[in-house]
């Protein structure tokens, strides 16, 4: 396309945009059981961002704690129920990010769990969805829920019922 044509035709960019694409798993309306990887990707991204920002805050907060009095003061300000909820969300995020991270490490670094290339046959399910990573993904979801419940018990009651 030459320059004069470009000036006459005003094209619409039609981009979904960063925030819609990385926060809404159904911006492309595929069913959950058809493509749970997209939900996993968005949860991985959101949990990663939560952990990264917490890490930066954690480094700053702990830098003010070189004597016991300051430490007590910070602990008192951070012991409100809302902070407990925040801690629980953080624990859930870390558990999910870690478990899904193991799955992604296997898939992306070692290339396992995505099946072998094959001849397309009905019902036309891509090999990467029939491979082990899909089962691993469901395991990640279930284990994350269990871990989240356990961490809630630990944070809100102070003890694990073992």
């Amino acid at each position, binding site marked *: 396309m030459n320059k004069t044509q470009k000036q006459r035709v005003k094209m619409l960019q039609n981009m979904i945009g960063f925030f819609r694409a990385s926060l809404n798993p159904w911006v492309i309306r595929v069913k959950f059981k058809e493509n749970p990887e997209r939900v996993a990707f968005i949860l991985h991204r959101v949990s990663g961002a939560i952990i*990264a920002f917490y*890490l930066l805050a954690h*480094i700053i907060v702990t*830098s003010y704690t070189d004597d016991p009095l300051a430490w007590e003061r910070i602990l008192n300000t951070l012991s409100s129920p809302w902070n407990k909820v925040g801690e629980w969300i953080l624990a859930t995020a870390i558990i999910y990010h870690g478990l899904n991270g193991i799955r992604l490490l296997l898939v992306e670094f070692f290339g396992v769990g995505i099946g072998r290339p094959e001849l397309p046959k009905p019902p036309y399910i891509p090999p990467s969805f029939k491979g082990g990573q899909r089962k691993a993904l469901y395991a990640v979801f279930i284990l994350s829920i269990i871990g989240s419940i356990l961490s809630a018990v630990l944070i809100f009651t102070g*003890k694990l019922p073992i």
Partner: protein
Amino acid sequence: MVKESTWSIIQYITAILLILFLGFHLIERIPGLSPLQAATYEESLEYEKVSRAYDSYGWVLATLLVIGLFHGLNGLRGMLLEWKPEARTVINIVILVVFIVFAFVGFTTIYNHLAG
């Protein structure tokens, strides 16, 4: 110019290390498994227990600081590169500066605890 795959390789290596080191850091909070002998979750956050953690496991915290910062900031960098792909150089410089500043702050904290 560092290739993107080099950052990716470090990202995956730090991911493996974080599973071990961050796992240890979180197990300190769990009563029964905690190496700090804390009876409850709150007790594991007391000053005496935490400073014991600094004394015994200072090297764990130092490693955790570096690999955690790298993994987290490289992840953020990836997101920012997608958000504003035209500001590639600015993003890389900002992330590098944040990494250096926070690593310095963290190391100062660990050093102060160890020094007394």
